[in-house]
């Protein structure tokens, strides 16, 4: 690949006369400024603020709303002693791996791949339908998914048509329903990225493999996937981070129940922070989510690094 030789090296500067490294760094970093300022003011400051707040007993209302006290690690101690929390942590990992890493990612790639080979009209229709679930506002998608899985819902009516007895899926299999709902809603995102990325795979590489006698599967495994490794790692990271914070979908479908059988961390955090008003405790939960996101992401970054080193 031609870009490998120059990517990462500075563009040729024909008249570099004694410019210092500092100036160069500023010049190069300059375009980052608008984004950096926005991020600093509206995201980084609040996140740090929230993090500090997780060491207090701040609440939304009551005495501690206006005059919170420093409580050190008490919120975290309470968190790690709470059996609901360990369950919630586990459900979050299950939800993320099953619906994002496996579901959205694999299905999204498969659909994008099929679209490059299918009849043009079919590809357009198929892509459009899948995007439809994605463009629905989350709360609407949640109602649609609820209506689909509920006792008298579409799924059971379809099962009835073929002579199968339905069940109250939201009750007997809450995790499965929210995972499927999230796959349904979120697959379009990875599909769109893979669709754009597949178009960037140099055709001559595939052509060369075909001339070497590789079949379609081999071409996919040996040419397409390795070329897209960076994109795949990035996509995985993005959908993982998005899925970790899925809230409305779960809240409308099962509200974390029955009991706490589908209470992932965002649902758990919301209950604590807003229903119970314990903003600080809710933030402590969110901090743990941040760490989970980072752990997942570091894995993908390792893949990305290797992909870039290979170039």
């Amino acid at each position, binding site marked *: 690949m031609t870009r490998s030789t120059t990517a990462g090296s500075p563009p040729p500067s024909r*008249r*570099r*006369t004694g*410019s210092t490294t500092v100036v160069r760094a*500023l*010049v*190069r970093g*300059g*375009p*980052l*400024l*608008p984004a950096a*300022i*926005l991020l600093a*003011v509206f995201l980084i400051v609040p996140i740090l603020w929230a993090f500090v707040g997780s060491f207090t007993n701040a*609440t*939304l*209302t*009551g*005495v501690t*709303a*206006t005059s919170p006290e420093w409580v050190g690690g008490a919120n975290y101690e309470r968190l790690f002693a709470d059996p609901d929390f360990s369950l919630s942590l586990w459900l979050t990992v299950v939800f993320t791996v099953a619906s994002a890493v496996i579901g959205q990612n694999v299905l999204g790639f498969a659909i994008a791949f099929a679209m490059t080979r299918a009849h043009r009209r079919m590809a357009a229709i198929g892509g459009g339908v899948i995007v439809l679930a994605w463009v629905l506002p989350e709360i609407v998608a949640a109602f649609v998914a609820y209506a689909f899985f*509920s*006792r008298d819902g579409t799924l059971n009516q379809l099962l009835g048509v073929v002579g199968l007895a339905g069940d*109250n899926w*939201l*009750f*007997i299999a809450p995790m499965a329903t929210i995972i499927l709902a999230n796959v349904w809603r979120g697959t379009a995102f990875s599909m769109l990225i893979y669709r754009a990325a597949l178009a960037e795979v140099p055709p001559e590489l595939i052509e060369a493999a075909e001339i070497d006698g590789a079949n379609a599967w081999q071409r996919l495994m040996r040419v397409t996937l390795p070329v897209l490794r960076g994109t795949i790692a990035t996509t995985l990271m993005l959908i993982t981070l998005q899925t970790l914070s899925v809230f409305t979908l779960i809240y409308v479908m099962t*509200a974390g*129940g*029955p*009991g706490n059988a589908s209470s992932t961390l965002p649902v758990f955090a919301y*209950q604590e922070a*807003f*229903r*119970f*008003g314990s903003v600080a405790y809710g933030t402590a939960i969110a901090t743990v989510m941040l760490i989970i996101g980072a752990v997942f992401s570091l894995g993908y970054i390792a893949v990305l690094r290797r992909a870039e080193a290979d170039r």
Partner: protein
Amino acid sequence: MRARRSAIALSAIAAGSLIGIVGCSPASGGGSGDEQTLTVSYIRTDAFTALDTLMQTTKEQFEADNDGVTVELQPASANDEDYKTRLALSHRSADTAPDIFYQDTTTVRADAEAGYLLALDDYLAEWEDWDQFSDAAKQAGVGNDGQTYAVSLGTDTRGLWYSIPVLEAAGIETPWQPETWDDVLAMAEAVQSSDPDAVPFMLYAGTGTGEGSNMQGFYQLLYGTELGGDALYDSESGKWVVGSQGFIDSLEFVQTVYDEGYALPVDRALDPNVWQSVFGELFPGDALGATIEGSYTPSFWVPGGSFEWDSYADNMGVAAFPTQNGDGPGVSMSGGWTLAVGAQTDAPDLAFEFLTMALSFDNSLSYVNENSQIAVRADVAADPSYTEANPFVGAVTEFVEFTYFRPATSDYNQISAAVQRATEAVITGQASPAEAAAEYDREVESIVGADQVIAP
């Protein structure tokens, strides 16, 4: 080199203009100059327009009476939880705190403690209409320090709604008025044997129906046990009750109802939308004997309601839910919303005047009628247009005499969730009533601290 400098310059300009925009943006909120502005915050949805009508009317009247004062209405289209969150946030700054707002009774104490609400005692003392308010309604606006912080807009009560055809088919005479819990169970047994397909007695329980499973379920039982109004929270000591026999007895009643198959199956009972089946299918289909529901029940069936049902008035009856052993007239739970004045308002006198205008006889009357509320003003409750709004208004209004409000402390929502978990553990068979009660005691202690609980 020059080219790259221009890149920096460009970014700097972009960043600078951002800051400029940030700096110049106008702040919202309170009035400035000689013009006074009152901001009013409340909920308005297409399905809940009564309060908007009230506010629009009051704004017109108020602006006509007070020259130079502008009332700025800030209706929010949101659910209760989100509205409450935004309201709590808005109190964090004097610029954004509304002057008058729609306030849930369950958060009055906590919001007063936080210093968000203005104490109204001095103003109320001079308001002649204040005597018209019922004692229960007055109590709903009282903070932990005994001062009044909010004035009730209207309330609701809860009773035992039953299907006349289903009960009569089972040989039970109507109008029906059970005296004890056993009478309720006897009714359920009779219905079960007369029509095995019908649901004899639906009792909400578990976390699925949320707060409703307590208000229209467990509390109706608990507040009818030996400790009565102090069964959940001891008002004298201000502590939460643990280790009470009444709690276990109530859970045993719940267990009986579910074990005997009187209620809907557990998986349906835990569906957050189960109440829609109750109103939409079961009662109109003569497939349910009785359930505990709110005074607003007819509003679902009247023309324009969610589940229009022409003959509901002839088919339904309502009775007070009995106490455990027949002591006292019955049990009812009440909630409802109030109007309150912000502690940070620039014009407390004007704000209070607006509040009294919104709660005047005429305005109250049209509001409670339009919104299926129970009137809290004696004069409104006596008005023919109120008592004749639907055939059940008289009966459910009488429940006000023995109704209870929840202990709206800042811990309340957590306690409520613990109660829901206890009933859920019982109906799903995860725990016996005694075990579930013991677990509840442990949870309460960890929520409020060991020094905030009391054993009877």
